[in-house]
């Protein structure tokens, strides 16, 4: 790792004041697990890291929102998220996915904000949070703004968070009682590897038909993304294997998979097809 300046502000205001709108080598860090990996590989050479570890208060923990849903502080560790009764009640799909996300030690240190800000397409939570309709609040000296989860990651390690912004919290809306959710994670190498394909689904049913559907894929593509054609194919259809297979075909047709050590583009396209079908079926 290269040498860098490390600052540890005590307040959020001080933290955002230490970011630099014109310098992407200045970064906010919380657990820093993902960033240290990039620094060790010399893919990222910071000039200054703004550590958020001395900020506590409302940026840590899972809170009920008065109007329903949850507000999750960006500094909440993935372990705290995994063990949160509120999260388990509101979105068990999140709690379940966290059990297979990296390992206990990484989850003890890594935070939700860092997980989302990193922009790595292999992260498990972005596709899930997209289907749950989550939003992210980012703050800077200019104020704060909301980013829809589906708009947060714009490319391979590219996010819509500006250099002078950092994630303060995540809003998870209350889920309808009839929502079917599932996250299907497929690892082609070892069981604890990064996913080759991650598929998150969310759909509602009424009178035997699917009335609303959201479907997102991660890991196989350059960024996690909703797949509109697959979603459209589900709405109005029966929640049955034939409809799920049609949606899986639509998803496989819509993506441009990236080839890497976890598989060729053609292989990943087939794995997306398989795992979309499975996710929809297991969500039943």
């Amino acid at each position, binding site marked *: 790792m290269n040498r*860098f300046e490390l600052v540890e502000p005590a307040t959020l205001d001080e933290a955002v004041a230490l970011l630099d709108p014109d310098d992407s080598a200045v970064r906010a860090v919380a657990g820093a697990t993902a960033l240290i990996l990039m620094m060790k590989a010399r893919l990222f050479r910071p000039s200054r890291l703004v550590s958020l570890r001395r900020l506590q208060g409302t940026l840590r923990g899972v809170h009920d929102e008065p109007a329903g849903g949850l507000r999750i502080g960006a500094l909440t560790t993935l372990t705290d998220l995994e063990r949160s009764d509120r999260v388990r009640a509101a979105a068990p799909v999140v709690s379940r996915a966290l059990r297979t996300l990296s390992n206990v030690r990484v989850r*003890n240190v890594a935070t939700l904000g860092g997980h989302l800000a990193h922009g790595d397409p292999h992260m498990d939570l972005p596709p899930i949070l997209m289907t749950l309709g989550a939003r992210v609040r980012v703050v800077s000296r200019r104020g704060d703004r909301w980013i829809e989860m589906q708009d947060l990651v714009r490319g391979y390690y590219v996010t819509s968070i500006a250099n002078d912004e950092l994630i303060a919290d995540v809003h998870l809306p209350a889920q309808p009682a009839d929502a079917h959710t599932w996250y299907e994670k497929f690892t082609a190498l070892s069981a604890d590897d990064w996913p080759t394909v991650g598929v998150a689904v969310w759909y509602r049913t009424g009178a035997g038909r699917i009335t609303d559907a959201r479907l997102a894929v991660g890991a196989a593509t350059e960024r996690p993304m909703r797949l509109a054609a697959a979603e459209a194919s589900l709405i109005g259809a029966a929640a049955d294997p034939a409809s799920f297979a049609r949606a899986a075909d639509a998803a496989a047709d819509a993506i441009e998979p990236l080839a890497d050590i976890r598989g060729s583009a053609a292989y990943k396209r087939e794995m997306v097809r398989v795992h979309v079908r499975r996710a929809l079926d297991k969500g039943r």
Partner: protein
Amino acid sequence: MSDRHQRTIAFTLNGRRVRASVATHETILEVLQRDFGLFGARESCGQGLCGCCTVLVDGTAVSGCLYLAAFVDDADIVTVEGLSRGAELHPIQRAFVEKTGFQCGFCTPGVILMTKELLGRYPHPTDEEIRHYLSGNLCRCAAYPDIIEAVKRAAELMDPATLTNPGPRRHGDTET
């Protein structure tokens, strides 16, 4: 080297208050080895996957190879060297010896510290919980079945109410 890149940290290391001068980019693993001669936590994969560099920070297991030394300022650090009391091994260590929960021993310090966190949270873990907790600790000798037996034995030794077999006499025990 400018001061912006260097700082003095103070922390508790295996029960002792210590200070160290560290560069901001150094990991706690590097500092434990260089400044304190502690090699129980050792780097293997360097990516947080294998668990060989596990240390406890305020009772929580972390990968020492991915944890900046500057972040342990004011923290309480425990390494495998801090578990025994003099010649008396910690019950987890005794259990690993008794059940031979290792072969070459390279991964063992990390496995033992993960077991410490596990038993702190689940004093009587199921096999599934043991496997889940230790899934990030790789043993290239594949001593996994014995490791799981050792963790179960450690749970017994740490909770005398469940002790069915007191095990071999330890160094320091008195005849009764």
